[in-house]
């Protein structure tokens, strides 16, 4: 267990276990991204998830992930953000980025984009869905990400070195 050395103005010295005082700052932060492109709908996005392995490692325990189902490391109130970059070489009236809670049974947040192509080539759109979610039960309050769109040929972008389609989770406090 980590300990902090005390050296107060009064000359008192000793050690204090970190379990005996309140620490500031974020205790849980995690970020996962999709590493490969795919086309059409994915309900949910099940595969090719990886934890961000470039710009930081998780803070705290981190979320667990299996077949696109994300489980929080502990109960609490979390800020969760699902962002996606998409492209298509045809017009597309709607693309929806959906953040789901309760293992897919509720929509926490949703955002829409659309594409009007330029010069007969792939054109991009970007959506972000944000929610604050009170996770009182880590099993039943798992989250998932979903892409719904008008055309099956439209592409959702994924990359192993860049955050194109990704989800970020920050713990704000206790439930």
């Amino acid at each position: 267990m980590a300990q902090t050395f005390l050296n107060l103005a009064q000359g008192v010295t000793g050690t204090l276990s970190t379990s005996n005082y309140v620490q500031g700052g974020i205790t849980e932060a995690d970020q996962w991204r999709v590493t490969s492109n795919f086309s059409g709908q994915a309900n949910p996005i099940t595969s090719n998830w990886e934890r961000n392995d470039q710009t930081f490692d998780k803070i705290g325990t981190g979320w667990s992930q299996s077949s696109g189902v994300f489980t929080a490391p502990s109960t609490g109130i979390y800020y969760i953000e699902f962002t996606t970059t998409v492209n298509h070489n045809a017009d597309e009236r709607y693309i929806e980025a959906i953040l789901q809670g309760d293992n897919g049974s509720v929509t926490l947040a949703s955002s829409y984009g659309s594409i009007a192509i330029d010069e007969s080539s792939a054109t991009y759109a970007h959506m972000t869905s944000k929610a604050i979610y009170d996770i009182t039960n880590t099993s039943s309050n798992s989250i998932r990400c979903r892409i719904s769109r008008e055309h099956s040929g439209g592409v959702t972008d994924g990359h192993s070195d860049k955050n194109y389609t990704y989800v970020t989770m920050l713990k704000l406090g206790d439930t």
Partner: protein
Amino acid sequence: MDYITGRPNHIEDYLCQLYSNQWFGWTDSKNKVYANLRLTEKIGVDGNIVNNPRSLPTEQECTDGLKAMQDDWDSKNG
């Protein structure tokens, strides 16, 4: 795909157009060559996580498919 021009330049572009959803991935996502191409175990369909029904194309099919996409792009944008 070249992100500036939009011209297809990788077999991943062909694979995306072959079938929709997340039917493929890579054993090494930082080295996306045919030898590292794999089928995903599961895909998400209508809220359900189901077994992936697809099979991998051959390397030649990927090469030919990408070439066809490039020829199509060139004819429209050349």
